[in-house]
């Protein structure tokens, strides 16, 4: 699909006046519904942006082939947010003001989601994240214009803690997190959930983000003699941590568990055997055994030669969420769509989800998955209501 018409391409290079004249589209019946995708296409988070893009593209193709939304096709317009809030906000403003998008999605890191959410609010438009899992987005920093269709950190921790209590009762847990807001809050959430279910904390250490060498912490880990190691590092840091744990022979007799972003399709190829047996709580796995998911995974594989991960699946699902809301509202008007989104139930590859009206957080069945022979296998399930936790949003 072409991202821009030739007219707008020319306008970008030509004078401002021309750009302004061509970029004001006329709205009407049969015209496409425009979805802005403000996602990292370059930089460290580009691999996640790639899954987001694929998920959205696949859903758009299917929805348009089936007659669109209220007879109008969906049109995706991409901008590179670079996972930098300062860039992502500027791009979001372009999408809202120049491209006149009706809805926005695609933000990855929580800083960008929060800042772009504010742009959406000031432009009186709605947005949804399909990736960010910081609890604050639908907690103390919630916004009436921001929705989250993926599972937040709290839901993931709840699922993992429930599994741990059964698999390793009274476990001795050591925590190793990246030293920044997200890493610390993820560790705190899991710690609370696990301790409540009988686990003891034998130590915790926070390593700098982008840490080169974890071996200086291994002495502490060894001395604490834990039987479970929880970590919330991500991306390149995971590759290093697991490689070095393996190198130092620490993985023997140690169950490693962690955040859903710790081992993903972006880095599992690089970690290989070192991550064998790793367990995490997630909102999606390609393993989910339902006809809807089989169909989705097959279509995704056929189109992109790789299985979807949780980002791809939730980005696919967000368009069905928006479709359901617009059809219920009978309009793309912001206030009407917002009203329709309250407690909306919609179908996704991982089963039906409910958008909680109080904090705009999707409720869904949670899974724990184990990394075995290069793939995640589902090992347990937690019902939606048990994992969701209280509604901490006070703004609306």
């Amino acid at each position, binding site marked *: 699909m072409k991202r821009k018409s030739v007219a707008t391409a020319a306008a970008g290079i030509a004078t401002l006046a021309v750009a302004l004249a061509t970029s004001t589209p006329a709205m009407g019946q049969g015209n496409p519904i425009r979805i802005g995708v403000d996602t990292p296409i370059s930089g460290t988070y580009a691999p996640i942006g790639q899954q987001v893009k694929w998920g959205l593209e696949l859903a758009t193709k299917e929805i348009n082939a089936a007659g669109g939304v209220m007879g109008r096709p969906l049109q995706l317009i991409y901008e590179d947010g670079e996972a930098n809030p300062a860039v992502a906000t500027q791009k979001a403003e372009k999408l809202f003001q120049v491209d006149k998008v009706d809805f926005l999605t695609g933000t990855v890191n929580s800083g960008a989601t929060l800042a772009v959410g504010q742009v959406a609010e000031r432009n009186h438009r709605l947005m949804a994240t399909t990736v960010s899992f910081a609890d604050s987005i639908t907690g103390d920093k919630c916004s009436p214009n921001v929705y989250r269709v993926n599972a937040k950190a709290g839901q993931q921790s709840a699922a993992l803690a429930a599994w741990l209590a059964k698999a390793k009762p009274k476990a001795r847990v050591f925590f190793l997190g990246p030293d920044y807001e997200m890493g610390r809050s993820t560790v705190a959430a899991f710690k609370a959930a696990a301790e409540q279910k009988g686990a003891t904390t034998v130590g915790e250490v926070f390593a700098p983000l982008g840490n*080169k060498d974890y071996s*200086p912490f291994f002495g502490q880990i060894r001395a604490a003699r834990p039987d479970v190691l929880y970590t919330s590092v991500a991306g390149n840091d995971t590759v290093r941590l697991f490689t070095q744990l393996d190198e130092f022979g620490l993985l023997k007799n140690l169950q490693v568990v962690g955040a859903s972003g710790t081992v993903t399709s972006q880095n599992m190829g690089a970690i290989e055997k070192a991550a064998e047996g790793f367990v995490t709580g997630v909102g999606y796995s390609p393993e989910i055994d339902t006809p809807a998911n089989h169909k989705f995974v097959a279509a995704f594989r056929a189109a992109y030669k790789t299985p979807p991960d949780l980002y791809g699946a939730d980005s696919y699902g967000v368009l069905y969420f928006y479709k359901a809301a617009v059809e219920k509202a009978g309009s793309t008007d912001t206030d009407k769509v917002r009203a329709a989104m309250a407690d909306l139930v919609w179908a996704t590859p991982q089963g039906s989800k409910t958008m909680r009206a109080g904090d705009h957080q999707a409720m869904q069945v949670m899974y724990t998955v184990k990394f075995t022979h290069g793939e995640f296998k589902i090992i347990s399930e937690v019902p939606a209501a048990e994992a969701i936790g209280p509604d901490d949003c006070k703004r609306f």
Partner: protein
Amino acid sequence: MHGLLETLQFVYAPQVVNGLSIGVAVILMALGLTILFGLLDVINMAHGEFYALGAYLAVSLLAAGVDFWLCLLVVPLLMLPLGYVTERLLIQRVFNRKDRHVLTLLLTFGLGIVLEDAYRIVFGPNTVRVDSPISGAANVLGMYFPNYRLFVMGVGALIIALVWVVVFRTRLGAMVRAAAHDRQMASSLGVPVSRVYSGTFAFGVALAGLAGVLLAPIYSVFPTMGKDFILLAFTVVIVGGMGSIKGAVIAGLVLMQIQALASLYISPVWTEPLLFGVMVLVLMWRPQGLFGKLGNG
């Protein structure tokens, strides 16, 4: 008494050994930087990107079935012509201008930006892991330490010694030092100054590449990996005295010990600001760093 011994053995000793191992890695990065500055007066901001290139070349060669040990030899050899051409095409153009320190710094800064983005296009954005060619770990006094890291420490020390011998004990090194010390004089004595400069730059680039291959199995490979060590390497070079090999080695070892031992008492996140503070104090005391420039031994 028993408790104290145990603390020494299980808490301090591993930390010291780890600090040593990281120190060698940082010195390997700092070595190329300090040589380029000492001999050419060039601050190479793209040094980290050349280090990444070395690692990526190793990944590509390994994928093509080349043995890791052969990579250690082949990659630096491949980097030599690359460094030579870079010096000819870029550095040479601004080398004779008045602000050459700043201009070469800016130029290599631009080059670093371009290279990093190019790696993303050519090699993809995802992390690649290189299997360690020596597996297993040694049990030294009850401490568990990976064999490959022991190997890297040994080879690192060997490389540092070799570089020192080449610069200070060979005819080639004498020519380079002469060209660095007094360009006109060296030229009139028949030293091909311009080619010596290009050759020296190529040597610095090859060193970065070699560090890339050696450290790839420990730190894995990705497009922005060049940024990893660069701040630490610059700190080491500044503290040691820009252009001093001895300074880089001593500063590298001392600073990494400070970091390793400090991280027992303060959150590891604050060890980098701590090292920076040490650097500032050293500079206030001795603005040229601990040791002088290369030409002066």
